[in-house]
């Protein structure tokens, strides 16, 4: 039962972390509080579903199409819809309020498009749902894939942000966009890049979770909020934090469900989140000001 | 002169770094005390400890014989300790008058309404911002913001005023104006602790100085004596000022 709980927690946690990583880039670096984030996740789920059911394309293969597309769409969204707001923003708060309002509109637009194209029905398909035996327990292969991607993306992002020049530049933009310009960082490019990378991660998450979760055009907000919780708990802009927070929440959930009461799982995850913030107001890895 | 502030054995650590180490000194009522030291020696930290922005790890701070170490800043401010900040802090979206009224409205004997407005304008005039009452603080230059900060601090009717490099960045003429402003405060009976790297100002204003280095107090005494202290010269002043 213990290994079951751990494994199940790790896989769910991996999913939370993966989905949150994109948001932490978008909010942490580009300073866009993207309320439409979950809609991008679900849109990718729909596309993967469509490619699978009508084209017989494996979701893992469709990643090769969907991820670049997600990157490109996000890049355009930033370039066309958000850049005017970034330019007119006089302060961080102003940009925050503006981005909340405009991505709220974007949320409706993307959701509206999904409703028009796919309707409000529940959608579900099954791929790679084969049982895999590890450590004496069974788990669906598709969930392991998600965990694998989470760890891979987490490591890649961490390395990218901490060790590469471009990564440090993105972090610099996160800290102070004006000063970043003074050290030759093209701030608009960096912000668009981070936003697009975040979008690419979002759609990756969407494709992967579509293999085992039932979704419809209306549940994007669930992913947005979950991602926000993870991002905040990990510390804004901190990829390692997001990974850790996601996995902690996943484990907490599965342990409570297994050993305490499934009725309390969500309550306890929120309680853990709140407790972390009470002790560390800047998140697990954040720096309290 | 009676003792207004007594700092005894105060220590403050940030992680592994001891920013202030068992520092003790006194400030007498009515004096203008210079607090000197190289960059990173703990001067601002000391100001933060006195004003309640930081809590000491050890030691005591007595203001008018009452222990204030670790009290919350708003209580210390109401007791009559006002300060300015090394990196100016004004409320950008409020105008100058409102910024000063912030100092008036919450002190022990608060002023509010038109009385506060009149007093705010008077203080603005005193720091050289006459006629700027309606200017948003964010649109003012750095130096003007510093003036504004001082007016706000004066609004608290302080008995002890902490100035953290308030004169930094003034040119010669402005410096002279600033020095005489601080002197006039002293004449009004306000006790001042000033952190400053402008030696000319220290020489002309401060009767006594305390010098810190690496968190510890390395010299205390009359300005002339302190400036001649070889330890101070080598750690802080350099040969030019010797």
């Amino acid at each position, binding site marked *: *039962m213990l290994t079951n709980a751990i494994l199940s927690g790790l896989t769910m946690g991996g999913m939370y972390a993966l989905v949150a990583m994109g948001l932490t880039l978008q909010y942490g670096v580009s300073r866009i509080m993207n309320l439409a984030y979950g809609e991008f996740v679900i849109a990718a789920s729909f596309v993967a579903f469509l490619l699978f059911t009508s084209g017989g394309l494996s979701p893992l293969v469709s990643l090769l199409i969907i991820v670049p597309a997600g990157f490109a769409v996000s890049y355009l969204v930033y370039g066309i819809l958000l850049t005017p707001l970034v330019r007119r923003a006089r302060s961080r708060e102003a940009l925050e309020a503006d981005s909340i309002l405009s991505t709220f509109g974007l949320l409706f637009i993307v959701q509206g498009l999904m409703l028009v194209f796919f309707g409000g029905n529940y959608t579900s398909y099954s791929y790679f749902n084969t049982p895999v035996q590890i450590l004496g327990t069974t788990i669906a292969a598709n969930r392991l894939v998600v965990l694998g991607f989470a760890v891979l993306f987490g490591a890649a992002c961490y390395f990218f942000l901490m060790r590469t020049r471009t990564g440090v530049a993105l972090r610099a933009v996160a800290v102070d966009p004006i000063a970043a310009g003074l050290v030759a960082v093209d701030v608009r490019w960096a912000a668009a890049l981070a936003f697009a990378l975040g979008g690419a991660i979002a759609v990756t998450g969407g494709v992967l979770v579509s293999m085992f*979760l039932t979704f419809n055009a209306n549940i994007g907000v669930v992913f947005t909020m979950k991602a926000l919780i993870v991002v905040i708990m990990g510390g804004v802009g901190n990829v390692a934090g997001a990974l850790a927070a996601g996995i902690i929440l996943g484990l907490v959930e599965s342990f409570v469900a297994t050993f305490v009461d499934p009725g309390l799982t969500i309550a306890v995850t929120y309680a853990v989140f709140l407790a972390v913030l009470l002790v560390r107001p800047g998140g697990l890895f954040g720096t309290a000001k | 002169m009676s003792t207004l502030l007594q700092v005894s054995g105060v220590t403050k650590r940030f992680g592994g770094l001891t920013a202030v180490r068992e520092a003790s000194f006194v400030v007498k009522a009515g004096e203008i005390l210079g607090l000197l030291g190289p960059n990173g020696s703990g001067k601002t930290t000391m100001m933060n400890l006195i004003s309640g922005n930081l809590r000491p790890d050890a030691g005591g701070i007595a203001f008018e014989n009452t222990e204030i170490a670790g009290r919350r800043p708003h209580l210390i401010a109401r007791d009559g300790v006002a300060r300015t900040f090394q990196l100016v802090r004004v409320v950008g979206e409020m105008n100058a008058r409102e910024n000063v009224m912030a100092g008036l409205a919450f002190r022990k004997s608060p002023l509010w309404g038109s009385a506060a407005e009149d007093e705010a304008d008077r203080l603005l005039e005193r720091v050289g911002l006459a006629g700027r009452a309606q200017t948003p603080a964010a649109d003012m230059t750095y130096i003007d913001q510093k003036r504004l900060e001082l007016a706000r601090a004066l609004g608290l009717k302080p008995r002890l005023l902490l100035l953290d490099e308030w004169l930094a960045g003034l040119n010669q003429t402005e410096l002279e104006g600033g020095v005489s402003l601080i002197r006039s405060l002293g004449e009004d009976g306000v006790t001042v602790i000033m952190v400053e790297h402008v030696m000319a100002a220290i020489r002309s204003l401060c009767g006594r100085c305390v010098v810190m280095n690496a968190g510890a107090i390395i010299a205390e005494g009359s300005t002339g004596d302190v400036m001649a202290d070889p330890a101070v010269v080598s750690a802080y002043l350099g040969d030019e000022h010797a």
Partner: protein
Amino acid sequence: SQESVRIGYVVSKTGANAGGATTSTIPNYELWVHEINEAGGIQVGDQKLKIEVVEYDDRSSSEEAVRAVERLATQDKVDFILTPWGTGNNLAVGPIFDKYGYPQIAGTSVTDRAPDLAKRWPNSYWLLGTGGSYAEGFVDLLVKLREEGKIGDEVAMASIADGFGIELSTAGRTALQENGFKLVYDQTYPLGTQDLAPIVNEVKALNPDVFIAFSYPPDTLGLTDQARVLGFNPKIFYTGVATAFPLYKDRFKDAANGVVSLGGIDPNDEKVKAYIAKHKEVTGKEPDRWASFMTYAGLQALQQSIEQSGTLDKEKVSEVLRTGTFDTVLGNISFDNENRQVPNIFTVGQWQDGEFVGLVPTDKEGSGELVFPKPEWPAAQ
């Protein structure tokens, strides 16, 4: 006299309830309007009147539903109002239907208070009945199986923590305990739970003969998925809402075989066959095998009561609704005078070779035989 019948409705086209509404409610409203208009309209007295629709989205909010129904009644002045999706919104709009005298034929509300509500609002009809009827019908089936020595005493039950799940699980628990079953697992899980593996793992370790989940669509699919991956195959595997959806069949194909749930139909009934075919033709997808049928039957009853009374007068139509008998996809039905529900529905059904066959009440015409035990899950693809 008027040229058309104005029919209004407010449903959740967006928001949390949209999944349910788009499955069971909206397609049937569209189908019904399409059929009537295709046939030239409703016969009202001596003229045929086409239907003109006024529709709103309640965005899954009770407050929006209330306001929209007020709007339909007072601004749009529609002749009849079709009901919103779900228990909460039907209760929210109940007082307004009542205030303006509209008959309220709810096809997607399960509530133990159905009898009370029918008394409180005399023009209201709660076709899906009470949670108790579903739970009790199922427990009766279990009792019989135990008598036949096919299953033991041990039952595991999981339910969603909202009104529906709690009403059903409460009724189920009482019925099970009264009949001497042992609940080896009895837990709820909150709405929005994404990870169901812990529940299935734990239940599997207990190895009960019967697993019951009073669940909602995403969890119904998730539980089935996990049971299959983890190789949990009890003799009776019961999951809640969405099991009777075409989605379930499409998703699980052969693996759906033997799964038990609420609802069910008689697949050999001609009317049922025709309805399914027409539904598919007009809306592009098959109806679910539970609430869609009640919803559609309710619409047929409304149409017939208008035709029988020969008027659009709400009073008179309501009178006919209360007392008449209607020829519907559920067969000939009349609304139980006491509590205004349809007595003639299947409460338990099972997927059998691609059709969700109604089993209980066993004495109802066209009821099928339980396939027992549930076949092994086929190997996953």
